C-alpha cells in the first residue's frame, strides 16, 4: 500500500488554553485534529491531574497531522500562545494511508 509522509504534532496544554490553540491550528490550514481530554503527568509546573471543577489544573493532548509546511507554521504560531501556560510541543515524522485527509 502506498504511504504518504506527513508531520505529526503533539501539544500537551492546559485545558483553558486549548481553544485558542485549536483555532490557531485551523487557521494554519490543518484539515483536522484530535483532542484527548484529561491527560495527567508531571512537568515544570508540578503534578497536573486535578481534573475536577476547574480547567485551570487540567491538561489536554492535541494531535495534529499535517503537511510539513503547515506543521511548521503551527509550531511557530504555538509559541506566543503558550507563553504563560503549561505546554509541551513535539513534532515527529509519520506515514499516513489517506493522503487527501491531511
Amino acid at each position, binding site marked *: 500500500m502506498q504511504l504518504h509522509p506527513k508531520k505529526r504534532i503533539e501539544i500537551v496544554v*492546559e485545558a*483553558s*488554553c486549548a*481553544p*485558542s490553540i485549536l483555532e490557531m491550528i485551523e487557521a494554519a490550514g490543518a484539515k483536522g485534529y484530535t483532542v484527548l481530554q*484529561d491527560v495527567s503527568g508531571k512537568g515544570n509546573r508540578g503534578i497536573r491531574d*486535578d*481534573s*475536577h*471543577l*476547574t*480547567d*485551570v*489544573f487540567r491538561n489536554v493532548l492535541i494531535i495534529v497531522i499535517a503537511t510539513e509546511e503547515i506543521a511548521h507554521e503551527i509550531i511557530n504560531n504555538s509559541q506566543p500562545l503558550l*507563553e*504563560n*501556560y503549561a505546554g509541551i510541543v513535539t513534532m515527529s515524522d509519520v506515514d499516513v494511508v489517506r493522503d487527501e485527509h491531511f
Partner: protein
Amino acid sequence: MADLIQIAAGNFLSPMVLFFALGVAAGYVQSDLTIPEPISKALSLYLMLAIGFKGGVALASSGIDSMVAVALTVAIGLSLFLPVIAFSLLRAVTSLDSRNAAAIAAHYGSVSIVTFVAATSFLEYRQVPYEGFLVAMLAVMETPAIITGLLLARRSLGQASSDRESVFSPQVLRQVFLCGSVVLLAGSFMIGWTTGDGGMQIMAPLLKEPFQAVLAIFLLDMGLLVGKRLGDFGQVGKQLVMFGIYMPLIGAAIGMAAAAAIGLSVGGITLVAVLAASASYIVVPAAMRLSLPQANPAIYVTLSLAVTFPFNLAVGIPLYHAIAGMIGPA
C-alpha cells in the same frame, strides 16, 4: 452566644460538613479515593438544576413584585463592587503585584454555588424560609465580578497596549455571559417559575428528597480537592490565608447591611451574606487564566477553594445566620 455555639456545633456535625472533612483528610494524606470526574460533574449539574428550579417555583408561588428588581440590582452591585474592596485591601496589606491582586479580587466578588446550596440546606433543616428570588441573585452575581477584576488589572497594567486589549477577549466575554452554570441556573429557574407547583410535583421525587444526600456526596468530592490543594499553602503565605478568612467577613457584613436595608427576611439576609462572603472557584479561575495568564492560579484557586470555602461552610453559614437573626425582621 450559647445559641450560636450550639448552632455552630450542630452544623459541624451535619453529614455535609463531616463528609467534606472526610474528603479533606483523605485528599491530604493522598489516599487514592477519587470520585470520577463525569460523576462529580453530574452531581454539580444536579445541584444547580435543583436549586434553580426550586427558586423558580418559590417565586411563582410568592409572585413577583418590585422587591425582585431591587434585589437583583443589589446583587449585581455587590458583585461589581466587592472586588474593589478586595483589591484595595490586597494592595494595602500584602505585597502581591496588581495582576495577582486583581485576579484574587474578582474571585471574591463572584460566588460559590455550593456554599449557597449548603446554606439553603442549613436553613431548610431549621425550617427558616427564604425568598425564592435569592437563586436569581445567585445567578446574576456569578460573573459581573470578572469585569471589575479585569478593569482593575487593566488600569494598573498602565499603557502596555497589547495587554490592555487582550484582557477583554471574545472568549472571556462569552464566559461572562454564557457560562454553563449561569445558563443552567437561570434556565432551571425560569422553568421552575413557569411551571410552578405543578412542575414541582413532577420533579420532586428527584429534586427534593435526594437533594441533601447528593450535596453530601458532592462535598466529599470538594473535600478531596481541598485536601490536595493544602500542599499549596506555602505558595499562598500567611498574609493571604488571613485575607481568605477576613475578606468573607467583610463581604458578609456588606451583604447583610444591603439585604437588611431592602427588607429581606432572616433567611434572605443569611443567604445574601453567604453570597457576598463566598468566592468563586470554577468560573472566575477559568476566566482569569485566560485574561490574566501571568497571575498564579495556585494562589487564587487555593485561596478561594481551600481557605474561604471551608471557612464559610463550617463557620460562616451558622455565624451569618445568627447575626441575621439579630438584625433581621422578627
